């Protein structure tokens, strides 16, 4: 199967390379969401990542949707699905430990292609996160590279060396910004790499703070970086960087991990340190609007990720619970009141969410 799988990948890659169809542009986000794709990471080494689909109309969740739609993959996606990105009519699933990117059709969940992430020596690169820009998907990998996937050919066309343990990635102001966390190098890395998506080069590397991980951008061309610190002398930081002037405009000792900018606020989860609650932070001084974004007393045991539907302004919080049994996804309105929730069974540690409209 493994060989077939690779063969398929090659065949599909070739098929799409010879294709000259234009990329369909991303539809405007004015339609209400019909469904939610939920990627559950699973447990390390258990090969149990799940792609589930929640139907908002009938409140039905199909926990193992990918396997249901693709019986030729009885074991599913593999190990540790780390990122999910819907772009240009394709759903990209970044599989960290199984070290490849799965591409599926978001309309029916069917397999389109899989893109293997290997070093020149044939070792797994362990891809982490993806961001889209123009006709490319840029994917960070733990070996310190960013790979550019052509959205038409679905082949990796460029591999751009950045800092060690490239982690988060975001597009802003016609550039891509990559956090280099480097937890296994002496003293951690503390930089953000800036990539020019036209020349496919790293143009600059800026020091922002120890162990930068989470990254998000606003409409005004600022990016926000969550630095975890080194867990000893350097504490966690939240950093604001102006991409026009490439200057750091704000630093605070705010402990965060996942950060998502939306509509004038940063939605943040705590980290190794910090708050156990999801919070909404002000852009000016990073202070929390309240100690807990959730206002109706709903308990989220282990908040694992935050996704905001820009159309409805609903806030989705993935709850990893005890990380070994089925998680749960909560939908809150913008005031922090619960609208609905569903179990991600058999998905363990649900994280990223993508909307179908």
């Amino acid at each position, binding site marked *: *199967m*493994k*060989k*077939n*799988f690779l063969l398929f990948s090659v065949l599909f890659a070739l098929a799409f390379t010879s294709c000259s169809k234009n990329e369909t542009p991303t539809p405007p986000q004015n339609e209400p969401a019909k469904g939610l794709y939920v990627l559950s*990471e699973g*447990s*390390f*080494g*258990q*090969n*149990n990542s799940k792609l589930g689909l929640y139907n908002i109309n009938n409140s039905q969740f199909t926990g*193992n949707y990918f396997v249901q739609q693709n019986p030729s993959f*009885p*074991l599913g996606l*593999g*190990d*540790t699905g780390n990122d999910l990105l819907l772009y240009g009519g394709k759903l990209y699933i970044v*599989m960290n*430990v*199984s*070290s*490849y990117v799965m591409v599926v059709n978001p309309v029916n969940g069917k397999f389109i292609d*899989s893109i293997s992430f290997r*070093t020149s*020596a044939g*070792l*797994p*690169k*362990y891809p982490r996160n993806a961001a889209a820009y123009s006709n490319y998907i840029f994917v960070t990998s*733990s*070996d310190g590279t960013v790979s550019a996937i052509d959205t038409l050919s679905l082949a990796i066309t460029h591999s751009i060396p950045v800092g*060690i*343990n490239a982690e988060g990635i975001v597009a802003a102001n016609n550039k891509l910004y990559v956090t280099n966390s480097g*937890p*296994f*190098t*002496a*003293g951690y890395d503390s930089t953000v790499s800036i990539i020019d998506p036209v020349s496919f080069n790293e143009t600059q590397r800026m020091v922002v703070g120890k162990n930068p991980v989470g990254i998000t951008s606003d409409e005004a061309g600022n990016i926000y970086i969550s630095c975890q610190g*080194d*867990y*000893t002398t350097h504490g966690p930081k939240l950093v604001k960087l102006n991409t026009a002037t490439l200057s750091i405009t704000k630093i605070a000792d705010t402990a965060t*991990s*996942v950060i998502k900018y939306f509509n004038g606020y940063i939605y943040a*989860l*705590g*980290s*190794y340190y910090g708050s156990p609650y999801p919070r909404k932070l002000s852009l000016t001084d990073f202070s929390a609007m309240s100690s807990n974004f959730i206002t109706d007393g709903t308990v989220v045991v282990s908040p*694992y990720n935050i996704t905001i539907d820009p159309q409805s302004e609903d806030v989705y919080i993935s709850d*990893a*619970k*005890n*990380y*070994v*049994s*089925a998680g749960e996804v909560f939908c809150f309105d913008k005031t922090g009141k619960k609208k609905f929730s569903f179990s991600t*069974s*058999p998905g*363990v*540690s649900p994280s990223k969410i993508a909307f179908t409209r």
Partner: protein
Amino acid sequence: MKKQYRYIILFIFIYAVSIPICFAQQTDTLPNVSLHSKKPINNITAQVPVQVLQKNEIEKIGNNNVADAVKYFSGVLVKDYGGLGGLKTVSVRSLGAGYTGVLYDGLPICDAQAGQVDLGKIATQQLNQIQLYSGQVNNLLLPARSYAYGAVLALQSWDATDAISKTQTTISLQGGSFGLINPAAQVSFKTGNKFTHRVNGSYQYSNGNYPFTVYENAAATQKRQNDDMQTIRLEYDMQYAFNDSNTLQIKAYHYQSAQGLPGGVIIYANNSSQRLSNNNNFLQARWQKNIKHNTRVLLSAKYNYDYKVYRDPDFIYSTNGLENKYRQQEMYVSAAADKKLFSLFTLGLSSDYFINSLQRKDKVFTPFASPVRYNWISHAALQANGKKIQAQAGFLYYHQQEKVKTGNAAVGIKRLNPALSLAWQPLQDKELSLRLSYKSMIRPPSFDDLYYTLVGNTSLKPEQSQQWNLGIAGKKIFPGFVQWASITIDVYHNLVREKILAVPRQNLFQWTMLNIGKVQANGLDASLLFKTKKIHAWNAQLRVNYSYQKSLDVSDNGSSLYKTQLPYTPVHSGSMMWQVTVHQLELSVSGLFSSYRYRLGDPIADNLVKEWASFEVYAAHPFQASKNIYCKPFVSLNNIFNQQYEVIRFYPMPRFNYRLGITIHL
């Protein structure tokens, strides 16, 4: 440091006080009971369940390691990650592997870093006997630490009472599947009248690249990667017999291994290159003195040195790969005494003081705690040996203090734990016994639990457990074909609180250890043994074991996992061993089975790990080659039905494999 002096002084004080107390009254003679007695233990009248495997049984099962052999005990769960180098840990009655104490020739072997012993690394070739106590060991003349475990696995490689008149040499050579080669040799000899020596050594190599069914495609097979293992083991034992039947035993042990760590199979990206090498050495001495037939004293000392190097050359997160080097040391002294009082009672006192240290020897970029642990364990118990009733009550005092170079040291431990046991033979002239026991104990957190970089948590408390056992055992001699049969049935209830579990924080790369678990285990262990009369040179024995185990996670009644079965814990499991002797020919058929389990807490199809059964066949035909040469060729066929199964999900076990070899006694 001042505090440590206080412990040492206390320790010496205990010696000074306890030993004369024991010597003071000298009345009756002590029965010759020993943990390492050659006589088979009477597990009918034992106060706690005891299971025994003798040499002739050990050699017929498994692949020459202790973990494979103890799979044949009931109530035992071996987590086997497959192959020669795969980790094999043993938990008894759902207590967790950290509760299983391992005594090697009378003294504990321990890994304070991991908190559990990898039994796959201990060879069985040199062992005469393996005993498993599911609860408190009843013998009172043991180091205090022997009473600090939930279950004790006692391995005996050499019997002090072994009388040899002349030099005895044994050479053996084995080979088999997956490149197995295993030569071993042993020489026993005497120098003068009082010194007996034994030198014993073995070498083992296997490339471990066994085929397994590819997960993504059941029609294809792949070979297990990076599963090779090479070990060298050398042991020297010496016994000095004093004129007055006192004995001094000294043991030196050296073990060196180099192996791959194959890891679980990752679908679509199976890749493995991590290596581990281990150098383990210990030196131990035991001096036992009998004083006027009613008092015995046992003084022991041990020094253990362990060095582990872990390498990941393909560690992608760093340009130079990853290398971890750990050095562990243990210094151990123990004094124990037991004394018979008024012909009915035996009083036992023992006290151990030992120091564990762990140092990291590689280029660390985060400061390492380098913990040093000072342990003081004392035990006092009184045993009553009535004609119909035997009972024991005891206390164990556990004191632990720790020091670190950087960061916070673990919280100290001071605990007093009781243990009680009782056996009753209600019928006269019948071998039938009822038993009841209770034991309360703690498991201190391991160094990894406390200090592992970013994961460890120094505010951990020790785990606490309570064990109850109620059993019945009987033996009957028959006039017919079956010479005798014995049966034991035990039901138990175990409760583990403050169980230490690894919990990820904000993502799967940030874990921490917390005292959040609670486990409630209810189970039943049953064993049946039949032995037939010798008829026309035929002789047979059948042993059947069955275990029922309901081990529930009762940590959090708000969790979806509340009262679900613990991962990897089968409800039903068992073993059978059928041995036949026909003239010289020794034949054995043995088998293991396990019902289905779940790999994670949720009892759903996605987590199902299928039931399995594996059978093995052994045949040997010893013969006298010449006047002084005795040969025993054998063949051992494992997993004869070529089953592809897993004990741990994504760690495939070897399918059919074989060993053949010859043992020559000169």
